[in-house]
């Protein structure tokens, strides 16, 4: 028993249902139902999926609970989704995001946001 490396799923004796595939920039990535985009990417060993708009610096999960907006990602052509909040569905096309996230030009107008003050 001790020889096998513990995993979170093993620890809680989870039996996730059958998995499915999503894509990250066109590359297939395995996913499990109920996981967030961030959890799927972490499981795939991906730690960053966005670059900042000024410095072009890589970012990924920071707060993990939807507060910080560092983990923004494009999902099915919708930019600026919080990877830590969005639950994946089979076939989701996840794309890394550069700068303000509308480089692809899709949906940027409809997604204008108001943030207060």
């Amino acid at each position, binding site marked *: 028993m001790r020889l096998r490396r513990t995993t979170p799923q093993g620890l809680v004796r989870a039996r996730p249902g059958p998995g499915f595939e999503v894509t990250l920039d066109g590359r297939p990535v395995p996913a499990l139902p109920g996981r967030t985009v961030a959890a799927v990417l972490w*499981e795939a060993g991906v730690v*960053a999926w966005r670059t900042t708009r000024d410095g072009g610096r890589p970012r990924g999960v*920071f707060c993990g609970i939807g507060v*910080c*907006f560092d983990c923004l990602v494009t999902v099915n052509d919708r930019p600026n*989704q919080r990877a830590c909040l969005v639950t994946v569905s089979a076939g989701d096309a996840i794309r890394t995001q550069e700068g303000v996230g509308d480089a692809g030009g899709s949906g940027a107008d409809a997604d204008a*946001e108001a943030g207060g003050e």
Partner: protein
Amino acid sequence: MRVARVRMRMRKPVGSEGRQERGGRAGAGAVVVVGAGPAGVAAAVCAADQGVRVVLVDSAVRAGGQFYRQPDARWGARRPQVLHHGWRTWQRLTARLDAHLADGQVTHLAERHVWFVERAGGDGFVVHALGGSGQDRPETVRGDAVLLATGAYEKVLPFPGWTLPGVVTAGGAQAMLKGGLVLPPGRTVVVAGTGPLLMPVAAGLAAAGARVGALIESAGPGRLAWGAAKVAGHPAKLAEGARYAAALVWRGVPVRTGHAVVAAHGSVRLEAVTVAALDAEGRVRAGTGRRIACDALAVGHGLLPHTGLAGALGCRIEETAYGGWGVAVDGEQRTDLPGVWAAGEASGVGGAELALAEGEIAGRSIAARLRGREPDRRGCAAAAGTRAGLRAFARVIDGVYGPPAQWAERVGDDTVVCRCEEVPASAVRSAVAGLGATDLRSVKLLTRAGMGWCQGRVCAPGVAGVAGCAWSPASRVLAQPVPLAVLAREEGAAP
């Protein structure tokens, strides 16, 4: 900007079990509870027990908040309790919640992000939420009363390298583990910062298979010993701490108190951290820096309450008697705004058990007040006693933990302090020294620090520290970003 009188396209909200609720109007004698963590659920079941209709609105798929966050129900975890403290308490509470969901007394609107609560012209409140996977489906819920049980998030103070991928909040690492059953990519995690959250985070990560390279707590052994002596009257709390300490020893996790991570290193992702010893004043002891190779750093410096909805409603927000800020409440958890209650971390950070007690008191108070009665003092006595004890405990905790006094001096000029707008510490310092800014708002207007996506939730304490000005929870109109299309759908406008 006033956002009142926004008319939403009403959709029939779907309950957590696919049950539909009548048109969003909760009816007379109804309370809308915002947040389904320990406080919100405790309040919901207590109010429902006394015949009040409850609509529980929460952003997550399952009830539990951050503390009792769970993986997807379809995963059928047979031992969820190993990642939780006080699991039996939660099981008992959710059994009561499930009964009320079944009898229709409580409706659970899951995956709804509340962005605004407004007073409906003399007749209760309207809670505005966004649903749908893209959070673009507007919904409103009406109630005669509102309970704000919005919880807390983690405070992280800046240090060189803290924006590197792989650096996450301690609570974030725990949330990803509890909810996604996933560990940060890589082999080694260092847990650092200050506060009672660090031990359970390190113990949980280690139990789940991560190699925890070290737990770095900036509070020194002297403070910790003082705290242990002060909480002698809380044997259960001491035992809880001892259990985590023992688990860390058992897993071979080195624990360094009186130490801090002074820098994170890496080019495109985290590769190592430098850990140094602190003196009694919080200064780094020269020559003690030691580099630890790691793939992830889970870091936190305490919790901050979510007071945004309360602030926008006009509720008073103040420093609590047990440390930090919170929505001001009376003995019944009532805010200074009639019809609005607050409980849990939102009314002052003190942990899940305190949240449960406050939620119970709030639920009983709501049930009585909606009928124009005084709450039954005897019924609330046990919870009130628990609340008093846990607030006293929280006050000790607040005295033990805290970032080292000199942390702001270690923030290098080129260190980004506002993550969203990529504002370096040098810009904040020159706004103060060169442009004469004396408060956080001036610093924000001069540097853009705090103007980004998160609206300063993350950076405000750090920017305030670097600028040398006071911090208090900022008042914001909207609690989270809202599509302009939603705001534009005002009454009188084209549908």
